[in-house]
């Protein structure tokens, strides 16, 4: 097996392990929390 393929395999194992752990504990950097400043600084219709 080429070194680059081995490294890619390890990379995928790392990603899958991180994803599995995050899923197991329900963690996400995309979770809601607090009052968004930049995405919802304005309320009301955006129609022009």
């Amino acid at each position, binding site marked *: 097996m080429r070194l680059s393929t081995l490294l890619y395999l390890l990379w995928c194992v790392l990603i899958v392990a991180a994803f599995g752990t995050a899923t197991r504990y329900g963690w*996400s950097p995309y979770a809601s929390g*607090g009052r968004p400043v930049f995405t919802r600084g304005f309320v009301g219709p955006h129609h022009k």
Partner: protein
Amino acid sequence: MTSAPAVKALICPNCGAPVEIRAAGYTVSFVCGHCGTTLDAIDPELKPIAAAQKAFKKPEIALGTRAMLRGGEWEAIGYVERTDGETPWAEYLLFSPYLGYRFLVDAGSRWSLGTVLDRVPERRVGDRVWLDRKSYGRASEENYVARVTFVVGEFYWRVAVGETVRVTEFERSGALLSCEANDAERTWTRLDILKPGEAEAAFGIPPREEEEDDDSDDPLRPSPYAGRLWSWGAIALFAIGFLVLSTWSARPKQQLFFAQLSAIPDAPEKTAVLGQVTIDQTEPVTITGSADNLDNEWIDVDYSLVNRKTQESYDAYATLEHYHGTDSDGAWQEGSPVGIVKLSSVPPGQYDLVADISAHRWAASGPYGNLSASAQDATATLPITVWVDRGGSFSGNFWTALLLILAWPSVLAYLHYAHEKRRQLAYNR
């Protein structure tokens, strides 16, 4: 071929030099290595067929040199130089009493080993042909004429300077299919591109230097990325399969409670404890709020999931909104009356879900277009439904993991594609 042909020692009738026919019995014509006269190898007297070539030269690989190459021991017995009118190249005729003939093609910085086929390609569709279930694409739109400019040694056909054939080439990564035709016959040859230095090492000649404008990644050689693309693709497929399985196994498990409340537009903010939530293990909590009767109104909801024991609070914010109106393009509407918030990694415990709720009515006209006047009474209450689920997974995690897994194969696929494009351009030059 079942028996090794004997080497036959003869005298050139033109110059009197001793000559050897190495594939006696198979060789048809012979060009004297001393004077360049083409002789009839079938005639016992070696009758001259063509006069000596004026500018006689010696091939880089001396005729008679033996070498192990691609699983066979070969002897260089003939040498021919050809040109398409612009680019010259050389071909050595190799002979093995057990394997037959091969062509060692010297194209300057690249060598290839050619085998004349005893069959035609299996099928041909448009500009593609198939040989041994492998597809070859047309290398260039135009055929070209290859003309012999120099020849020495022995051959199994009557080769002569000036001989021409029409050549059509098909290519795939690392190999060429060459169809050569003249008025009498048509032959197909498969040429395998040799690794850099492979032919030079086999025949003991100095290795060719790379051309100045050429990188080590010769586009005419097989794509160095193709093999890895398959193995990386397989690894990526397994990894994505795990992501899908993991996401499926973490689908929302249970609705914890369901509550209904109301809000009055433009009334002071009110705080309500919506209910109690019990979390058994660290997991995400999804809070969904829905207000179906919004009419150019919006509701701000600040949720707080407060741990009864520690008073630690997990906060999130949602807006439920719906607007509609008319402008020069006609009627429009926007906003979602459903707001979903997702809290991550909520630890086990007893929680109170507290909501600060404030409802607002948008003005009937303003800088963002003309809104339809609300049909609702100014003091009418807006019903809100809230429900809480535990479990589930985050789609953002899935897409991020997918992106990270596919990033490197994508780079590899791009390099492979770029290599193939350069190969096409190199053939068409």
